[in-house]
């Protein structure tokens, strides 16, 4: 069955620390990958996406993600987090023949302490 798994459910780190969130997917064929962020009390917003091309994708707010096809992974990174990065982060995937239906991971709650 197709699935998306996120390695950590909860991450706590200090400002200026580096962040890496793991995401693995189990899909055959061509897959499109996304990272969304949900700030407290808000709706989901797109951080970045990968469809094809350069496997290192840069998104908003200094985030980037690397698609490693051989590992079925799409890990999210940020070199130096800020308190305002406190949020829940969701990895999501869809196949090109899925009518745009996104399958989400369970999410990772990130808390950045001052």
């Amino acid at each position, binding site marked *: 069955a197709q699935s998306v798994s996120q390695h950590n*459910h909860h991450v706590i780190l200090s400002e200026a620390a580096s962040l890496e969130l793991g995401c693995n997917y189990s899909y055959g064929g061509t897959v*499109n990958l*996304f990272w969304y962020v949900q700030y407290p009390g808000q*709706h989901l*917003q*797109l951080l970045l996406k990968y469809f094809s091309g350069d496997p290192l994708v840069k998104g908003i707010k200094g985030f980037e993600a690397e698609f490693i096809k051989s590992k079925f992974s799409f890990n999210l990174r940020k070199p130096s987090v800020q308190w305002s990065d406190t949020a829940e982060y969701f990895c999501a995937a869809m196949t090109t023949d899925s009518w*745009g239906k996104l399958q*989400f*991971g369970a999410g990772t709650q990130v808390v950045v302490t001052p």
Partner: protein
Amino acid sequence: NAGVTQTPKFRILKIGQSMTLQCTQDMNHNYMYWYRQDPGMGLKLIYYSVGAGITDKGEVPNGYNVSRSTTEDFPLRLELAAPSQTSVYFCAGKGGTGELFFGEGSRLTVL
């Protein structure tokens, strides 16, 4: 553009009551989706639509119904509310670049 708009933002229902969550969009999305979000579970797809008059079930459709009479509107109906339907519901539309644009969510509590 308002984007994707959901109403109501909050609602408390008694078991067995029915209600409709409204979703409207002004971005001309053909593809629209309803997800529910539960803590630690991510988002699960309830129903989706690829255009006016066309809808299909997602991963967790039981207890829900949808309609899509126009491109703009995609309401979600709960016929007999159950405590298991306590959740946050998100409507979304798919943009031309493949990303989903989400509404602000509707928090539903069934007591």
